[in-house]
Structures are given as structure tokens and as C-alpha cells.
């Protein structure tokens, strides 16, 4: 799950389609999503994700904000009912990184986002 995707998918349309809850960056939901990446190993995400990706993870600590910010991700989706730690939210607000959450499993979230991003290809 990498790169590509139609240009008209923004965070807002993913939030709506998957009924995600927005925990930070609700002023940035017009950000275009260009592909996605899934992973809980931060070096894997650093090495392989791309600018504009939506990142699906189960990690909730504040270091995810640094990774998303350094890689210019469109946003982060936490899965399986995970909630961002308080200092993660603080940092996300400061860095302007959207964080969304879902009760669905990572598998389901990734599948749905993949379909949205590839629908019009």
C-alpha cells in the first residue's frame, strides 16, 4: 500500500467514509492523501513511507508525531480503539499533525483506505 491514488481524496473524505474520530488537526482535513503506509516499527515507517501518505499504526506515544512530521505525512490513524497519549496530542497540536482514531482493526482500516484511494484508478 504505497503512493498513487486519485488526487481528490483528502483526509475529510476518509474520515467520513470510515467514521473516524478526529483527535487533532481538525483544521487540516482538506489535506490531500497520496497513498498510505502501515506499520508500528518507526524505522520501517521512516525508511519506507512517503510524503503525503496516511499512516496507520497502533503506536500512541508522542514519537509518532515526530515521524509523521519529518516524513510530511498527511495524517495518522490509530486503530483498534487506541487513543493518543496526552503528550502525543499536545505535540500533534503544536506540529499541526492530524490524528484520527478508529475502533476497527488495522486490517479493516487499511483495506477501506486502500479501496478509497484506488477506486478511481
Amino acid at each position, binding site marked *: 500500500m504505497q503512493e498513487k491514488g486519485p488526487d481528490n481524496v483528502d483526509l475529510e473524505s476518509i474520515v467520513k467514509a470510515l467514521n473516524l474520530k478526529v483527535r487533532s488537526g481538525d483544521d487540516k482535513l482538506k489535506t490531500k492523501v497520496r497513498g498510505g503506509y502501515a506499520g508500528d516499527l518507526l524505522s520501517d515507517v521512516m*525508511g519506507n513511507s512517503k510524503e503525503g501518505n496516511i499512516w496507520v499504526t497502533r503506536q500512541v506515544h508522542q514519537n509518532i508525531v515526530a515521524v509523521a512530521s*519529518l*516524513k510530511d505525512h498527511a495524517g495518522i490513524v490509530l486503530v483498534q480503539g487506541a487513543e493518543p497519549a496526552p503528550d502525543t496530542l499536545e505535540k500533534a497540536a503544536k506540529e499541526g499533525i492530524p490524528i484520527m482514531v478508529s475502533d476497527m482493526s488495522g486490517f479493516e482500516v487499511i483495506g477501506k483506505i486502500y479501496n478509497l484511494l484506488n477506486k478511481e484508478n
Partner: protein
Amino acid sequence: MDDKPLYEGSFAVIGGNFDHAGEVSSGIKAILKRMGLSSDVIRKVSLVAYESEINIVSYARKGMIRLRVVPDSVMIETIDEGPGIPDIDLALQPGYSTATDKIREMGFGAGMGLCNIKSFSDIFHISSEIGKGTCLRMIIKTNHRS
């Protein structure tokens, strides 16, 4: 022509402090952005700086990250006071890690950091002394803009 740096600075990193991990790298990224370097170069330097910073936080007591920008390249140099690396070839093998459980729980310590640094750098140099610390020097060339 490499003698006169466009930017030169050093940043302290405290070992064990994961709350601030990544802040030096974010600062470096902001500096390069302000200087107008290409996004490709900024991405490479950010990754190299971040992985180096995480290594210092994970393993050393403290360290220093030096940034030097010259007309045709960006250099990241790190010097830490830490345990050193007994077997550098082994440490450079993908998947090899001496990280503690605490570090791994956060998603670090997958044995990918040094490999990432090496593959994102044009020139990579590592030296280490047991009981003293580890030095890394990475150069990312800026003159082959795409």
C-alpha cells in the same frame, strides 16, 4: 569551494529522554527548509538525523549532532558518550539490535536504524570505541538535483 559553510551548528541530545526524541531532527529539517534545499535532500537529511538522534537517546548518556551545509552537500555528524559498538559489522546487519524491551515497545530497536542511515546517505562513516562512544558521519550530496 567546500570550505565556507552556508550553515554550521551543533545540537545536544540527552540519552534516555524519549519525550524530546526527534526535536533536534525537526529543528534541522526546519533550518534546511528555510535555506531552500530541495525536498529530496531535506527528506534524506531528516531521516539520517532522526535515526541518529534515536540511537543517541536509546543507547548513549548524551551526544551531539552537528549539521554542516556547504554548497554541494549536507553533513550530519554525531558524537556520543556511550557504551560503544563492539562489532560494527554486526550492528550494520538488518534486524540486529541490542535494544531493551522498553525501547522495542515504542517501535524502536528493530535493527533498521543504522541500515536506514547508510542507505539514505551518499557517504557513511562509523567509528566506535568500547566504553567511550560512537561517531557517525554522513554526507548527503545536494548537487544532483532531480
